[in-house]
């Protein structure tokens, strides 16, 4: 299958957890729905207009951490908005909100980097994106948004984008070295060396919305995430689909 593989990079990221509007906790990985929004934005789609075109039936995404990341909490002094009329800061008090940011080990010398593998049923979407992104140089192009990792101020960039052939496989119970996020339901056995114990976490990902901007029954996925750029040794349930791209194995989040 033809996939688009690229690095999503930035100095800081914030991927807001969906279940609270009073805290600003962040996922470690960009949720799949967020990645779809970025790609739609690059293609020039307006907010809330692309959910059908990027539904789980039509496209699949794998995500992997390319370099070690960490979380940092900063408390922000925000407007307290309980009704629309408070949007200009007219409420009596402000609200102090713990905001989590994803940053690299050293923000001065490094950056947050995710490897994204994107497949779409409609080849023309991949072709269009490759025209914008696959240029062999440091820049990226956009028909709409400025690339940002979650929040608009977390400006980022896309690099090393290429269209490559992904081999499709089905697991037969063998031990595999898997890069990136793994749906927990597909996982039969996981081998975590002691030194990696603190780098493997459980996280969830919202993958799609319906046309009314509600999450669908198929949207929420439980993931195992490795925060290092190394693969984990895992055994998947028999018959689980996985792909290999440039000799690395990934699972689509689905």
């Amino acid at each position, binding site marked *: 299958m033809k996939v688009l593989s690229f690095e999503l990079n930035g*100095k*800081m990221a914030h991927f807001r957890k969906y279940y609270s509007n009073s805290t600003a906790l962040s996922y470690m990985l960009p949720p799949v729905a967020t990645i779809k929004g970025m790609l739609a934005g690059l293609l020039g789609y307006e907010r809330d207009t692309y959910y059908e075109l990027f539904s789980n039936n039509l496209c699949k995404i794998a995500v992997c951490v390319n370099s070690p990341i960490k979380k940092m909490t*900063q408390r922000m002094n925000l407007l307290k908005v309980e009704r629309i009329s408070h949007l200009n800061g007219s409420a009596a008090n402000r609200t102090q909100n713990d905001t989590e940011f994803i940053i690299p080990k050293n923000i001065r010398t490094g950056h947050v980097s995710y490897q994204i593998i994107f497949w779409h049923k409609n080849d023309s979407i991949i072709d269009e994106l490759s025209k914008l992104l696959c240029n062999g140089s440091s820049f990226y192009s956009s028909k709409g948004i400025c690339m940002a990792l979650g929040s608009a101020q977390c400006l980022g960039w896309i690099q090393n984008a290429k269209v490559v052939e992904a081999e499709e496989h089905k697991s037969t119970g063998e031990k595999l070295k898997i890069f990136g996020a793994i749906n927990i339901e597909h996982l039969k056995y996981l081998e975590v060396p002691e030194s990696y114990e603190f780098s493997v976490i459980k996280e969830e990902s919202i993958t799609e919305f319906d046309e009314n901007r509600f999450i669908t029954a198929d949207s929420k996925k439980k993931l195992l995430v490795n925060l290092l750029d190394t693969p984990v040794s895992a055994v998947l349930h028999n018959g689980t689909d996985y792909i290999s791209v440039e000799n690395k194995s990934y699972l689509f989040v689905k």
Partner: protein
Amino acid sequence: MIVNNSEFLFLFEGTMTNPNGDPDQENKPRMDYETKTLLVSDVRRKRDCRDFLEEKGYDIFVATMNGTKVTMDKKFDAVLKKYGVDGKDVPEDKKIDAILDNHIDMRLFGSAMAVGGITKTFTGPVQISWGYSLHPVDLVKSSSIVTIMNDDSSTFGKMYKAHYALIAHSGSVNKYAAKKTRMSQEDLSIFRKSLVQSMMNNLTHSKQGQIPLMYLEVIYDENFDGYLGDLRRFIKAHYNPETPIRSGNDIKVDFSALSDELNLLKKKGYIKDVILWKSSQFTNVSGLPDAASVDMLDQIKAGR
């Protein structure tokens, strides 16, 4: 009308100052303690710009009215009345016109806004990243009298400042978002100057000691729809990691990787212009890109 994407770098230094306090950490400067990197939020920069432009007589949307907090409804009514578009018969888009046409901060930074019960979100064409120091930073703590209530009781508080920090923000201007908020070339020119000048005019206790050092902007060609994204990854800071950094003399900033990237894009015809303002105090630099010199200290004309 803005028809070009652009990206900018803004560098400033702070000596014995607190560029951006964290309210939950005794108002200590924001830091990543593991690497001793000082951080400054994007909203700090935008607030500086808004306050400065308001002083200059510009109508600012995300602000109080004559120093008093008023509800957004009241602010709307006042704004709509001022521009003669109040009343139920006036169509929605006329009201939105009045808000955008008369508030430079809406055109630059966007906002969630509400007119007559209809909510609309405008994404700001100008986005500024969090700034970070290009080197490890040491904090200074002092206990001092922060309030004197009356003759026999005053409060001692802790106050934190950074010894010295050279901080870089990166940012971008998006031509598509600019179309929606109707940001003009003149708005952009006012923004650049306000970014530099607002810092020089914010002389509160915690902010004194901040000096703008450099503003560099890459203006892309009209026919180029791209960005490099975060220009700070192409600049390199050299310093002795063994000794503390106490002034600009202890750090040298090399822009040659950025110049190389810009030259490549120039050859492809993707860059229209590179403009640069550099303070005469910022001397420890090398490899700066070829750029047209622009005066960012030129006075911003007064708003209405």
